[in-house]
């Protein structure tokens, strides 16, 4: 006899309502989680959700550091621009121009006469 035919026989035997005391019965039972397991799983799921939220918030907050770093760079560049503007203005000042080599090389010209 094969295993499957044995099963078939068993099924038939159960239909005869336990005539043979040595027959094997197979009963399909529902697998269920107990209340403790349910509770623990729910708690774990809640923690996972919380962790997910924390991850997102931390990621967003990390942008604050990036923003701060970019702002510092921007500040530095603005300051360099300001310094250069000031230096440029100083180079164009009247005193600077008057004391330049080009100006020193010029010959003063007195007006030859008034315009008639």
């Amino acid at each position: 006899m094969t295993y499957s035919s044995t099963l078939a026989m068993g099924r038939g035997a159960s239909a005869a309502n336990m005539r043979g005391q040595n027959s094997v019965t197979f009963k399909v039972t529902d697998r269920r989680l107990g209340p403790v397991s349910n509770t623990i799983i729910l708690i774990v799921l809640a923690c996972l959700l919380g962790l997910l939220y924390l991850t997102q918030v931390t990621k967003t907050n990390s942008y604050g550091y990036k923003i701060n770093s970019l702002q510092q760079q921007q500040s530095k560049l603005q300051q360099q621009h300001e310094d250069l503007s000031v230096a440029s203005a100083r180079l164009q000042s009247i005193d600077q121009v008057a004391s330049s080599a080009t100006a020193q090389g010029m010959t003063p010209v007195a007006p030859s006469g008034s315009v008639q």
Partner: protein
Amino acid sequence: MNQQPVQREINPIQRARLWYALLLIVFGIFAVRVFYLQVIRYDYYKKAALNTQLKQYEIPAERGIISAQYSGSTVPIVMNQKLYTLYADPVTVKKPVQTAAKLQPIIGGNVDTITKSLKSGGGLRYVILARKLSPAQSTKILKMKLPGVGTQEQDYRTYPQGTLAAQLLGFVSNDGSGEYGVEQALNKQLQGTSGQLKAVTDVNGVPLAASANNILTEPVPGSDVDLTVDVGMQSGVEKIVKAAQEQYKSKSVSAVVMDVHTGAIKAMANYPSYDPANYQQVDDAALFQNQAVTEPIEPGSITKVLTTAAALQKNVITPTTTFYDPGSWPIDGSNVADVEEDHSTGQQSVLSTLDKSLNTGATWMLMQMGGGQINFQARSTLYDFFTNRFGLGQATGVEQGYEAGGYVPKPQNTGSGINLTYANMSFGQAYSATALQMAAALSSVVNGGTYYQPRLIEQTISGNGQVTKIPPKVVAANVVSTQTSNEVISLLEQNNTNHVKEGFSYLNFGSGYGVGGKTGTAEVANPVGGYYADRVNGTYMGFVGGNSPQYAIVVYNMQPTKYNGFAGSGTGQPVFANIAHMLINNFGVTPRNP
């Protein structure tokens, strides 16, 4: 029969239920506690958290830049620069001598002075060791990581043109407010509006992006200002007044150059002056004042131009009217005579009143306004011209701090020698005016009769780039008629020509240009009463142009001590001539049509 004790077996299901109940109780306790903390006590803990996490920063606004005219465009003359203040916490500095020795090569100064500051007692936690350090100096200091020593970034005003127009510009004090000059007058527009950042931060103060409580208000930069002043003209006038102060050993010299057709101030200079970048080193605060607008004086005989204009406008005289000069006029028990020129009695004219600067002539003009005598009608007429038409006795509203309005006595008879007062007024004493007021008054006489408000601002540019041009503002129209204006111009040009003939060759501008003016030698009022016997001011008021006047020039030479002749012709007139020549040679004064 012996019986075995009955062993009760705990049902596994019951055991599970027991554990389950225990678990529920424990988590129930947690849930209740969490509910209490996060719902019941929500406000309390939120407030406590925000107190430590939420930081509020003020974001300072960039102060506006001040520019001036230069060869058809503008150049910045006041800018901003970020520099560093070096500070120390004396309590934290453990080795002040060594610290000072390390700092001195970078910041300069005296090691002992620095050491003394670092040893400051009394629980002082903040001392300033140096200001205005460059970024490179700050970096060097921070790299040394000296305990208790740090640098703080701060905005400073910087002046690329050096000390140019110092008193006209003013400066910005350490608390960020403008003092004196344009900086004070336009402080609100220049300073902008600070921004604000309220943010949850980390332990280092870096704002975190994920907070719903973050508030960011961007700062609004201050408006930039373009002045009417020409940098080249200002520089030239400053050199001239400086040379004059040194030559005549004056207390001070002031000069104003104004565009007669718009009221725009092209140059306004005083000497002595100061360096606005180092204003803290100035001991005498009077040096910060722009004397051309803050110090009214009795202007002296330059006033005769205004008295002549008033008399011509009232048609009580003409340019060719003559009169008999008795040498002095008895008024209110005193004799009004001449000071500047000595002459005998006889026929005089309007022109000779100006040429010889006759006090008797000016008094005579005033008398004509009253039908032949100084009375309420004459006084009211002169008062009306001086105050309502020529703008004297009140501030002009120019964009300067501490502008003075001067003083013009009212014509009502107060029983205190009012006629004598007005006689004096007609030739420039007994009232006071600033150099700027006289320039504006002369402009209104020679430009055809329009009194423009003197102004320093050409345009402003707001933080968002909006340009606002400031047009010339007419305060009073028809102060004199076109005919009167032309007559005064002609008289003053003839006066100038006469002075050339009298030997003042530097007043020769040739026939291609129209130049005219009047000298003034003014007595200096003594605060305790009367006038000083040994002090006078040399003044000059004139114009330069071609077919019509283009620029009005007023010179106040205060209490010169080294000169020849009268102070007006000896110290005011040469300064005017130098400025007029400078304008003709360098600044495109349009000559007469051939």
